[in-house]
């Protein structure tokens, strides 16, 4: 769902907003989990983009072109910017979520190897990609992923050690989510708490998604 601020998140990231507008957006971010979550993902996309090598082309055609059109050739290559439209960023952020699930399992499930490649995991992963943006969809995704985890446990595809680790980690995350939610009741306007809650909920999705992928992949 988009709102009036969605299109401005890129400007906000690039620090190209006037102070009053920035403050207004920050106030909005404090109350809008969707925007704060989107901003978080966009920030990660930009961070990753910055990390890419900006290698010059093997052959620089500009000097020849410049000579022909009579333009001075002493210019520097422009500095790479990473401003993109919000739709592009949203698409990229989903790609980042897919690519950087934060778990080893998803990566492993894509590969041939002891865990193999199991398309069955894709459906649960696809649900998880976008589902923390609203509580209803988030809860539905959690239920579905937990079901996949339970199936893995019952079928023996997930060994007891891994199940224990996942459950332990989920309990830690659930505690963190509960604490963040309680804190938000006390201070609903805190942009930090909103962002922190969104991140922690996202992390639970990532963990469950990885476990579900592993449960369907293990043989």
């Amino acid at each position, binding site marked *: 769902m988009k709102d009036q601020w969605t299109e401005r998140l890129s400007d906000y990231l690039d620090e190209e907003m006037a102070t009053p507008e920035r403050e207004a957006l920050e106030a909005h971010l404090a109350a809008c989990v969707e925007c704060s979550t989107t901003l978080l993902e966009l920030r990660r996309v930009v961070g990753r983009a910055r990390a890419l090598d900006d290698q010059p082309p093997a052959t620089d055609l500009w000097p020849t072109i410049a000579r022909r059109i009579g333009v001075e050739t002493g210019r520097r290559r422009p500095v790479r910017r990473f401003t993109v439209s919000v739709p592009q960023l949203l698409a990229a952020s989903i790609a980042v979520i897919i690519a950087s699930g934060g778990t*080893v399992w998803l990566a492993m499930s894509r590969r041939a190897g002891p865990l193999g490649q199991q398309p069955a995991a894709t459906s649960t992963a696809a649900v998880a990609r976008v589902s923390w943006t609203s509580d209803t969809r988030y809860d539905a995704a959690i239920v579905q992923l937990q079901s996949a985890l339970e199936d893995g446990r019952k079928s023996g595809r997930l060994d007891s050690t891994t199940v224990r680790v996942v459950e*332990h980690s989920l309990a*830690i995350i659930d505690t963190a989510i509960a604490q963040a939610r309680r*804190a938000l009741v006390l201070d609903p306007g*805190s942009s930090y708490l909103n962002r*922190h809650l969104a991140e922690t909920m996202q992390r639970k999705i990532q963990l469950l998604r990885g476990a579900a992928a592993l449960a369907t992949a293990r043989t």
Partner: protein
Amino acid sequence: MLTTVAVLATLFVSQQTDTQVAVRPGTRLDVTNVGGAIIVRTWTQNAVRVHAEHSDRMAIQIVLDAAALTIKGSSRRGPPQEQEVNYTITAPRWMALNLSGVHSDVEVEGSEAPVTVETVNGDVKCRGGTGYISLQSVSGSIGLQQAKGRVEVHTVSDGITLTDVSGDITGETVSGEVRLEGIESGNVDISTVSGEVVYDGTIRDGGHYRFSTHNGDVIIAIPDKTNATISVSTFNGDFASSFPVSVTETKRHRFSFTIGSGSARVELATFNGDIKLRRPGHLHGDDDHDGDHDQDGDHEPTRPTPPTPRPTPPTPPTLPR
């Protein structure tokens, strides 16, 4: 008991595979293991030596093609627990490594090439590595030393330790502390849910640094002459600095300040824990004795936000053994 041992001994006859394969520069090493360690050492020869210890029910497959030397075990028969293979592999330093296991500790020593490690239950230790370095585990610690490149480290249930690493760094765990020391980077993104975060490294002009945890302190070394805008967020903790800072912007649970030109962006966040700024080499300074400065510079560590009712202190569940 003795009978049982005797029967097992007859079932699992130990066997060794020891062979050497010549490889051309550019060839990648792919190793897959269900159970057992993968240890990779390096040398200057253009050859890979494979030493594997396994039961006689396992066969080691070694396949060389134009792109990769692939090593994996295959079970002739028997249950998965008999599929344990302990590899000690010696590979050229230039050889990219792609190592994956399930119940496997993985160790790499002396690589000068990209390294990718994925395991489910096991620790990952890597000394060396150049280029893209990805180390992942589910239940196990991650340790990386003397590496250079783009580093991604993920685990779920253990800690992460990076020492003398340069390049962009992304690190994440759920339950475990994250320690980065001797780091040279302009782009660091570290998070954990339950554990301390410690960073001692460069803060480069124009760089982006983000350190966050839910339960635990965030302790960051800020080198002298740093140019950074530092954002501090904590719900239930204090802020302390071993040097004076001047807060420029304060919001509920969050404030920021600028050091030097403010060129770098540093985000520090913990829900339950303190945020401490230190000088390099003094990460473990005592708040009461090393002259901590709060945002007012009055040497009294203070809460950066108005008093807030505190939630019950976190009590992470104990991992059953």
